[in-house]
């Protein structure tokens, strides 16, 4: 890897992506909140080692779709999902699938930074501990350090690992949450508007981080900033009124979209 230039890495990843190796496949996914239908037969595939951005106006169902990917909708009262979603060809809504196992493979970062009211170390160690990923203290130290390194937070917090995670700044908290998600070695990371509560500088750091994480993880990100989608993603999916309008390469999406509604949304005519 070290021998290759950054551009070469990028190219290799793009090639892998274009090999059409789908990490997750959504087939006719519909979601109901009680009587209300929030998603209408969405067919959307997530490619491996790719950042897929979900965009669309408020209430279009992009967050709802994201949450179906690791069954976080299960925690919402009266929510029902139909259709089929697979992760590496396993149906994640199958009765045999353990939702806890699924969420260990498909991690999630939320809109508002939500570190636990514990120390920075304990925040990271939480996931590995419940999944039994570390055999001993040294192992755990190693996981904590590696995760913080990955999230680009290590140098900032290495001297205060045992201070409270809630004492960090908003941007640091969000990167802590990403490190926490990375610590359980997921295959897919879902991000629900991860930068909406952050200032521009913190946002830039998190975006850079997302870009780097692509090498090891498959990332799905919901964002309401079109610039952000353009900056961080390779594939973009546009939702409107609970329907998938268009899914395409990000470059094409922002220059020459197939659908008029995408064009209008990107030009700021609605949304």
């Amino acid at each position, binding site marked *: 890897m070290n021998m290759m230039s950054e551009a070469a890495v990028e190219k290799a990843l793009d090639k892998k992506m274009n090999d059409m190796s789908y990490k997750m496949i959504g087939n006719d996914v519909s979601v109901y909140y009680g009587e209300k239908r929030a998603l209408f037969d969405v067919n959307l595939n997530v490619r491996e080692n790719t950042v897929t951005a979900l965009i669309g106006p408020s209430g279009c169902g992009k967050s709802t779709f994201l949450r179906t990917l*690791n069954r*976080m909708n299960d*925690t919402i*009262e009266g929510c029902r999902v139909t259709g089929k979603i697979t992760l590496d060809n396993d149906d994640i809504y199958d009765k045999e699938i353990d939702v*806890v*196992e*699924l*969420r*260990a*493979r498909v*991690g*999630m*970062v*939320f809109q*508002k930074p*939500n*570190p*636990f*009211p*514990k120390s920075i170390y304990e925040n990271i160690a*939480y*996931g590995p501990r*419940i*999944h039994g990923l570390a055999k001993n203290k040294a192992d755990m130290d190693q996981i904590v350090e590696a995760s913080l390194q990955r999230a680009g937070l290590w140098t900032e917090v290495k001297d205060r690992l045992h201070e409270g995670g*809630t004492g960090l700044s908003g941007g640091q908290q969000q990167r802590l*949450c990403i490190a*926490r*998600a990375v610590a*359980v070695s997921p295959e897919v990371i879902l991000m629900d508007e991860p930068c909406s509560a952050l200032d521009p500088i913190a946002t830039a750091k998190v975006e850079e981080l997302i870009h780097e994480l692509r090498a090891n993880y498959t990332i799905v990100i919901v964002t309401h900033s079109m610039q952000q989608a353009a900056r961080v993603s390779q594939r973009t999916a546009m939702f409107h009124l609970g329907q998938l309008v268009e899914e395409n390469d990000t470059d094409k999406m922002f220059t020459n979209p197939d659908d008029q509604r995408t064009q209008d949304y990107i030009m700021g005519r609605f949304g």
Partner: protein
Amino acid sequence: MSTPLILLVLAIIAIVCYVAGTRRALAIAGGVSSNLHSRQGYYGSFVAICAAVPAVIVLAIWLIASPFYINSTVTSGFPDEVKAQTEAQQGLSFGMVSGLARGMDVLTLEEIDKVGANPVELRSLLGTKGVALAGDPEPWMVASAGDLNAMQKISNRIMTVIVLIIALAGAGLSYVRIAPRFRARNRVEKVILSALILASSIAIVTTIGIVMSMLTEAGHFFGRISPWEFFFGTVWDPRFAAAGATASEGQFGLIPLLAGTLYIGFVAMLVAVPVGLFSAIYMSEYASPKVRAVAKPLLEVLAGIPTIVYGFFALTSVGPFLRDISAQLSGLTTGEYVNFIQAQSVLTAGFVMGIMLIPYVSSLSDDIITAVPRALRDGSLGLGATKSETIKKVVMPAALPGVVGALLMTASRAIGETMIVVLAAGVAARMQLNPFEPMTTVTVKIVSQLTGDLEFTSPQTLVAFALGITLFAITLCLNIYALFIVRKYREQYE
């Protein structure tokens, strides 16, 4: 005029003022109420307040102050030999005089003339009219009573006149001030604000008053019994003091009572904390909204049951049940049917008190657990934690300070609880560790020392105040500490 009559007149004046003020405001504005600074009703209220409030205040001050003045004047008119007596004796004489004065109001003039010379007959005559006197009145008392009546009459007349003048003056002055730009609303609202402040300060002042009165009486007690003996004494044996007998002081050791209080409270918390916490966790984390909507109010009904009812329950059901079951148990194991659990015992009282405390623990903890942000739960679930892992490792640690605060508040209730222990714990002030034997608490002893025919100035009675102030101090400290913890915890999530 009598005071209620004056108040009635003031009320009528206020109503008239309100109507007149409202009309005048509208008239000045030329019938268009939008020309006025405030809505017209405020002008009426302003006039009514100006008329009634100062008058009522003067009335109240007069009613409180004038008896002091009149009494001291009458007392200073007592014969010299009476003045030479002790204060208590003078008080008794004054009681006779005021009783006579009240009685003479009931009599007709002729009757007074007839008995004026013979005070002894006066007593029986007043008796037939329904006014009882403590002893035979002396001639000087009749004279003093006449003075008293005369002064009261004069005072009443002056008061009536002054109050009515103030009311009318207030009404007139404020009536003239009504003008379109006059800010009546601001003034009325200021008066309402001060009324609200007054209402809330009454609670605080009352608390201070209660503490002061307890402190004074406790001070009297500590004048007789040394604080050292009270706070560190290990024997509670107050004895019965016969009136006048100073020899039998008894022993007033707080320790056995405190030990019983804490022991029973501990047993109660042992029952209430696990059950209450588990039910709170179920209610907040697992129960579906439907179950919660039914179960939570039902649980809180438990909190509304008067504690005396729990006392019955302990006395008639739990106590005998424990006693019988212990007899059966010992019969099974040793062949001898001995009830090693007494019907009144630490266990009975603690168990029933624990049941009483369950809704407090569960309701307070439920609120605190529910207040833990959903984002924390999502964060944990999103990492692949199970629900129980999330509750154990994220939700409960986050809620812990608040839960501890709730438990401390519950503990202070357990310590102050009275009726259950009166009925179920027994009255023997003993220091021992067997939960099957009766023990007694501070509250039980307060009840038993204050009910009965004891002289009020004896240490046997006064000790109740010392006990009360001790209990108050303990629960106050617990509550303050609990509030402190809860507040500290709240800061984290706002």
